[in-house]
Structure formats: structure tokens, C-alpha cells
């Protein structure tokens, strides 16, 4: 029997890039097929072709052995293909029913919406697949995990047989991820089939039936979780041996560099985003701040770097009280900031690499004398940094917008690390980067720690936090629920904290015990 879905020789070229190079892929009915690859490997391009957002230059798509032409998403939906996007496409002020029927409305006589009939169908789907969604709830009131299930129902509502899930775990806590994997299992048990796009090895090992690894637009190989191990998968994904675990010496923290007391910060909507937080970071240690995205980390970092005035509390850097809204005063104290959104905050995209490298030192000698900029010095220092930090750019005069994400991030790292710094605030330093760049940036961070720099690392990637931190604070709804020593922090305990549950000491030691059993 023909496979449910077959892609044959799919090729897609973008100017200067071969995004997909003769990709073959089959999906059998009732399986979870993981598509594993780094950012930029071509996974998303392939799925966008399948979903009709791009059209392929070469190759054919077969559903149940019949060739189909997919030019736009409606064609894909007709062919029974649905997609759960990484960023949800929901309208917060609508109810679940309204969101789901949007675009496929049930209508009563007289042109009125038939919400009841739609809600009944939603309840039926929800019960069948164990999704546990209330059709009358407003989307804005739902936790992220539930919103994702609404997206899934949206697809099932349109009678899809094939579900494409694009990095579905990115926005979830570890517990929610477990929950999602259970749901995926129920879906395939009931006869649906899933293509699961990810770059996380652990998830693939946990939930996939089959794994196809893509690198540089090509299929590198297919395997199953039974045959493969994470090390082998990582090597396939990156194309060389990867150091998955970073070597970390025992920390030797010295004087307190950053001291935060009873900090409260409002966000732009005037909601309390940081609620009475106190902590400190000492020279030579990494304090990791874990938490699901949107629990006040952004506002905390903005307050620490002088970009958002706190409403209450004290921030001391090297014993100095920092005045409000004076980012330059704070950087001049010897503090560096790798911002969460490199394109929005960290770079002037239209400016050349050299100018971006002097973005917060341009007023110092030798880059300027009086008020005139010294272009020779700027170019020389730019060239030196490009070399030292291995920034791949045609020249220092190229606008940073032309650089890849990894190289853009290297520009920021080069700029911040080239100053004599005592405190580093790194927010999502590896978001959206390929494994090679992640490895590089992690090494640089650890080197700074060895030099005696105090590092505050904010990340939603739990693996990153656990690997790099000496102590870990977990933020939930603006509060720090607990600060743990890295040795005591298991994924289980951190996951509970990220969900707002404070585990008892018993649970902590038990979780640690269980983890040790798994490890040995």
C-alpha cells in the first residue's frame, strides 16, 4: 500500500541558497515522524512547501499514492494536511469556538453564526482525543499549553489526517511538553499522522517513531529512536562531532557584583511584571534565570540595564546605586548586555558591521577625538574583532542586516566582550542559532566566567540554564520562586517551579534520586 504522504525530490532554491535539495520523505499512517535539523537546515521551508506557503521548484507530493498540487494553504487543507504554527494564530478576545470556526463558519438560517453546532463538534473532538478544551472559554484566559491544543483542534475540525507541528515545544514548560507528547500519542493511536519539526534531540528520542535528519537542505539519513542515540543524532545534524556537555570547573565566586533588592517593575501595559525580586550575582559565577517566556524576565533585564525604570527597589552594580533610565551610566560601570531581541535592540541593521561594533564606545578614544569620528581606528578595531570572534562577513563595511543570525549575534558578543566588563547580562544569548554558534557562544560565556566576570543568564532553554549556571533562579509570574544550587536542580524540580508549583524538600530529593537512577 502506498504511504499516506510521500515527498519525492523536492527542491527549492532561493537567491544564492539551495534551501531544499531533492528531499525525499514518506509518512506512514499512524506514525510520528520527526524532522530533525538545525535552524536554517531547510525543515521549515520543506513544510511551508507542503502547506502551500511556497511552491517547489522541482519534485512532487503524493497523498495516498495520488499526486497532488498544493499552491496555497486551502489546497493543503483539502488534501488533509494541517499545520500547528510555532506562533499561534489565535485571536485572544474571541472564544475557543469562534477561533476554531473562523474561516469555516457554521451558519444558521438568516446568516447568523451557529456557535452551538460548532461547539458541539469541538467538544466531540476534544473528548475523542483527550484534549480537554472548553469551547466557551476566551482564548486570552487560557494557558499557553491549552492554546496549543486549540490550534490542534482547529486542524482536526477541518478533518486533517496529517498534522504538521512546527517546533511545538518552544513555548511550553517541561510538564506541558510531556502533556503534549501524550496527546500526540493519542492522536496517532486514533489514526492521525504527525510530522514533528524540532531541533531538540531529547524530544525526538522521547516521542518519535521515525527520525529523518536534514542538514544544509539535504536528507542526511533516517533512523528510529531505538537504533540511534543523542550523540549520533547530534553528529548527523551538525556534520561533525559535537561537544554536548560543556566542561565546567567548580565556581569560585568572589565579591558581589550585582545586588538587587525588592525590585518591582511595571511593563508597558502598566501591569506589575517584576514583583518584589531580590538576588545577587557574584564575580566568577553564573546565575541562571529560568522560566517560561513572559514571566517577567524581559522586564527584569530591561530594568537592570536601565531601559525600563523600576517602580520600587534597589539595583546596585559594584556597590554603586544605579540611577533610573541611564543605560550609558550602567554600561560605563563595566556592565555588558546581550539583549533578548538582537535585531530590535542590539544592532542597527542598516549600519555596517564596524559601526555596530562601536555602538556603545564610539564616544571614547580612539574611536573619536573631540566630536569627530576616527574612521581608520574604527575600521582597524572592526577588522581585529571580526578576526578574533570569527565573524563571517565580506567586510566590516557590510551592513549587519546581510549577516546570518549567528554572525549577527557574534557581532554583539564581540562588541560587548571587547570592553573591560565585570558584569554580563545575557538574555536568550543563543535563541535561533545553529548548534555551532551555540557551542561557540557557550564557550565564550564560560571563558568570561573564568576571567571573573559575574554573569546573569536569562534563558527559556532549560538545557542551556542547567549546563551553564552555578545557581538557578526560577521566575514565575514576576516572582522568583526559588534559587537552587545547580547540583540540586533537576529538570523535574525546575519544571514544577516554572509551572508555579513549589516542590517540597521531599520531592526535590526524590526527583534527584530518580534522575540519578536514570543517569546510571
Amino acid at each position, binding site marked *: 500500500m502506498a504511504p499516506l504522504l510521500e515527498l519525492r525530490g523536492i527542491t527549492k532554491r532561493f537567491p544564492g541558497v539551495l534551501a531544499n535539495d531533492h528531499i525525499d520523505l514518506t509518512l506512514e499512517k499512524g506514525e510520528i515522524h520527526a524532522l530533525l535539523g538545525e535552524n536554517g537546515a531547510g525543515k521549515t521551508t520543506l513544510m511551508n512547501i507542503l502547506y502551500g506557503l511556497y511552491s517547489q521548484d522541482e519534485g512532487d507530493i503524493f497523498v495516498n499514492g495520488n499526486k497532488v498540487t498544493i499552491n496555497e494553504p486551502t489546497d493543503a487543507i483539502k488534501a488533509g494536511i494541517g499545520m500547528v504554527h510555532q506562533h499561534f494564530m489565535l485571536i485572544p478576545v474571541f472564544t475557543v469556538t469562534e477561533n476554531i470556526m473562523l474561516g469555516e463558519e457554521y451558519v444558521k438560517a438568516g446568516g447568523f453564526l451557529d456557535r452551538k453546532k460548532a461547539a458541539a463538534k469541538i467538544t466531540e473532538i476534544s473528548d475523542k482525543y483527550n484534549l480537554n478544551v472548553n469551547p466557551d472559554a476566551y482564548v486570552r484566559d487560557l494557558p499557553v499549553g491549552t492554546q496549543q491544543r486549540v490550534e490542534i483542534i482547529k486542524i482536526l475540525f477541518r478533518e486533517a489526517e496529517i498534522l504538521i507541528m512546527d517546533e511545538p515545544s518552544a513555548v511550553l514548560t517541561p510538564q506541558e511538553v510531556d502533556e503534549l507528547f501524550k496527546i500526540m500519542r493519542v492522536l496517532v493511536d486514533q489514526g492521525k499522522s504527525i510530522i514533528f519539526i524540532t531541533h531538540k534531540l531529547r524530544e525526538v528520542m522521547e516521542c518519535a517513531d521515525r527520525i529523518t535528519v536534514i542538514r544544509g537542505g539535504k536528507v542526511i539519513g533516517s533512523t528510529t529512536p531505538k537504533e540511534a542515540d543523542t550523540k549520533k543524532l547530534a553528529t548527523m545534524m551538525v556534520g561533525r562531532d559535537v561537544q554536548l556537555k560543556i566542561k565546567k570547573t567548580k565556581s569560585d565566586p568572589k565579591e558581589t557584583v550585582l545586588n538587587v533588592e525588592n525590585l518591582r517593575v511595571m511593563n508597558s501595559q502598566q501591569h506589575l511584571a517584576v514583583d518584589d525580586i531580590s538576588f545577587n550575582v557574584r564575580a566568577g559565577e553564573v546565575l541562571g534565570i529560568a522560566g517560561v517566556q513572559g514571566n517577567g524576565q524581559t522586564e527584569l533585564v530591561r530594568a537592570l*540595564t*536601565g*531601559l525600563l525604570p523600576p517602580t520600587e527597589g534597589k539595583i546596585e552594580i559594584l556597590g554603586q546605586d544605579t540611577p533610573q533610565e*541611564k*543605560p*550609558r*551610566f*550602567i*554600561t*560605563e560601570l563595566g556592565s555588558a*548586555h546581550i*539583549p533578548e531581541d538582537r535585531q*530590535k*535592540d*542590539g*544592532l*542597527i*541593521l*542598516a*549600519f555596517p558591521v564596524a*559601526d555596530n561594533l562601536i*555602538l*556603545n564606545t*564610539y*564616544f571614547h578614544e580612539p574611536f*573619536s577625538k573631540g*566630536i*569627530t*569620528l576616527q574612521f581608520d581606528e574604527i575600521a582597524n578595531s572592526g577588522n581585529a574583532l571580526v578576526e578574533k570572534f570569527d565573524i563571517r562577513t565580506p567586510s566590516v563595511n*557590510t*551592513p549587519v*542586516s*546581510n549577516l546570518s543570525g549567528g554572525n549577527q549575534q557574534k557581532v554583539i558578543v564581540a562588541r560587548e566582550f571587547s570592553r573591560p566588563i565585570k558584569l554580563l547580562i545575557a538574555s536568550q544569548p543563543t535563541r535561533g542559532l545553529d548548534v555551532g554558534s551555540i557551542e561557540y557562544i557557550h564557550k565564550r560565556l564560560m571563558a568570561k566566567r573564568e576571567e571573573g566576570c559575574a554573569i546573569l543568564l536569562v534563558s527559556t532553554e532549560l538545557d542551556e540554564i542547567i549546563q551553564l549556571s552555578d545557581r538557578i533562579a526560577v521566575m514565575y509570574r514576576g516572582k522568583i520562586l526559588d534559587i537552587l544550587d545547580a547540583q540540586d536542580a533537576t529538570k523535574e524540580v525546575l519544571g514544577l517551579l516554572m509551572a508555579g508549583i513549589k516542590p517540597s524538600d521531599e520531592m526535590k530529593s526524590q526527583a534527584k534520586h530518580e534522575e540519578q537512577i536514570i543517569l546510571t
Partner: protein
Amino acid sequence: MENQKQTQNKPSGIAVFFDELSKSSGMVTFLAILTGILIAGLLVALTTVEVYDAFSISFWSGIKEALRTAWNTYSSLFIGAFGDPKKIAAAFQGGDGLEIRRAINPFFESLVQTTPFIFGGLSVALGFRVGLFNIGAEGQLFIGAMTSVYAGYAITGLPAYIHIPLALLAGAAGGAAWGFVPGYLKAKTGAHEVIITIMMNYIAFKLSDFMLRGPMKDPNEYTPKTPWIQESAQLTRLFPDTIRFHIGFFIALGVAYFVYWLLFKTTWGFELRTVGSNPNGARYAGINTTKATVVAMSLAGSLAGLAGANEVLGLNYRLVPSFTSGYGFDSIALALLGKNHPLGVVLSALLFGFLRNGSRQMQLKSGVPIDIVSILQALILTFIAAPAIIRSIYRLKKPDHEEETIKVGSWGGN
């Protein structure tokens, strides 16, 4: 692999030249102007009765008549802007000074028309570079004219080398004050500069009306006019009579260079451009965006003020109601055409100045209304604003990278 790729398809020098040329934005600008001229010529032919008459005789005579009409229009535009080459040659052979001056006058008159465009264009361009949309150039120009004229007639007994700079500075200061207000309001309250500058324009117009009828009115005149400025405040003219060309043009070029130097060679300019290109990034880099906004609007205002000062100190020698005929508004278009670069502004100011001056002669000679020049300007700007049209008509290649774009703060003042 990179090297291999380069050597493999290394094209010849000429091919590279044309490739680069077709990607450059200069090429687009040139073709936009050319296309604008062609379409405007077509419009002239379409709106001329003689052309239709000729078409009723035969197709070819119609085409001939259309081409003749367009040719006449543009040649009289050219003669109006540059002077008649035949007349110039004859006058130089005759050797009579007055005749020569008359013959070459159109060219210098075009430069006279260009001068306020340079100041105004620089004003708007500087604003755009900092992410601010200065619609208030016209009002700033009025205020600048008013303050400089006041310094011109009220202060007496100064030598020209002090009085002229002083009167110019007074104009710049007046414009700067008018630019400062929207800058300050934007920085402190987030009020959008577009709204504020539009309102400030009305205030400037009415204020100058009031001043001309009241405090600044020449008591010897019946109509609202200011007194004549002192001779020591008049911008020096470089030729004897009939040629009005004065040193204002060179001052404008000097100011254009200064703006270029300020924006691209100094730390202040670096800050201003950073704020204009990415205000979030500027804040992250510790740049005081509030200060940059206020400084930029004040500077933009002072440049527009200089445009007003240049007009009253160089040409009119007094202020009369509604004297500028829209230099401030044309400056917005001109700044866009010049890609907000001082050199580009000077070049497009020359284009606008020559077109404006030539259009009068064109109307006299060929009977084509002056408005066709406005249409021509509008066409050119449309093509500049939508380069995709030009690129697709002439099958140009897309540039390798995004051109440097200027972001103007959204409504609500981000």
C-alpha cells in the same frame, strides 16, 4: 568553496560595471527622471488641441505634431532654465555687458531658485535621518524670514561682514525655535511631530500676518510690509543689475557640506543617525533619544529658517505676506528624491530650481501651463518612491542588500 565560485564565473569588467550600475539606486533615480520626462511629454501632447487636429489629417502628421509639441515644450523649458545658447553666443560676440548679462541671466536665476530648496531640503532630510517627519519647514521658513528681516532693518550701523552673518543667524535661530517646540513636545509627551508641525505652520502663517500688519509694519506703507532691511544686511550680489544671483547659493552649499560632515563624520551625527535608524538600539547603546529628537528638530528648523532668511536678505529685502510660494512643502519631496543625503539634496534642489525657473519661460513661449512641471515632479517622485516600477520597466536587477531605510516613528510616537 567561496573562492572557487568567484573564479568560476568571473565576468568581464564591463559586465560587472553594468551589473553594478543596474543595481545602484543612482540608476533608478536617473531612469525615474527620464521616465517622468517622457510621460509628462506625452501628457503635454495629449492636452494640446493642435495635436488632435493633426491626427484628424493623418496618423503620421499627428505623431509628428505630438513630437513637435513635446519638443517645443521641453526646449522652451530648457531655454528658460539655462538661457538660449544662440543668444548667449551672439551676446558674447557683440560684447555688450548688459546683453551678456541678459543672455546668461536664466542660468543664474535658476541657481537663485535653487538656493531655498537646498536649505529646505536639508531641513527635511536631517529630520528624516533622525526618524522625524518635519512637515513644518514652511512655517519655520516664515519665522526665519521674520526674525532675519527684523535683524536686518532694526539693527543699524554695523558693517556688512557682521550684519549679514548676524541677520542669517537670527533667521536660523527663529527657525530653530519653531522646530524646537514640536521636538520638545514629541520628546516629553510623545505628541506626533507631523501633527504638531502642521499646526505650527498655521501659527507661523497667522503670526507673520499679524506681525506684518502690526508691530513690524512699515508705517510709510498702506499695505502690510516690513521696512526695507539695511544695505549692510543684504546678501552680496555677484553681478551688476538684472542678475539677482547672490552669495546665498554658496552659503547653501557650505551649509550642505556642514550637514554632511555633522551627520556622517561626528559622534553627534552618529547618535542622530542611530536614533533615526533604530530608536530601540539607540536607547540600548545609551544614547539620549530625547535629546536627539529635540536637537534634530531644532537643527531642522534652523535650516528651514535659513531658507527664509536667504529669501528676504538676498532677494526681497523686506517681508511681504505669503512670499515663499511653497518652498517648504516642495522640500519634503526634494529630500526624498535626494535620498536624505546632503549631496542628493543639492542635486535634487538644482533639478527643482531649474525646473521651476524654466517653467515660466515655457508657459510664455509654448503656452503649456506651469502645472506640467508639478506633474513632472510628481511623476519623478512616484517612481522614486516605488522603485519597483522602474526596476520592472527597465528589467533592472534587485540590489544585493536592502538600501538604508529611514524609519519614521509611527502614530503614537514610538
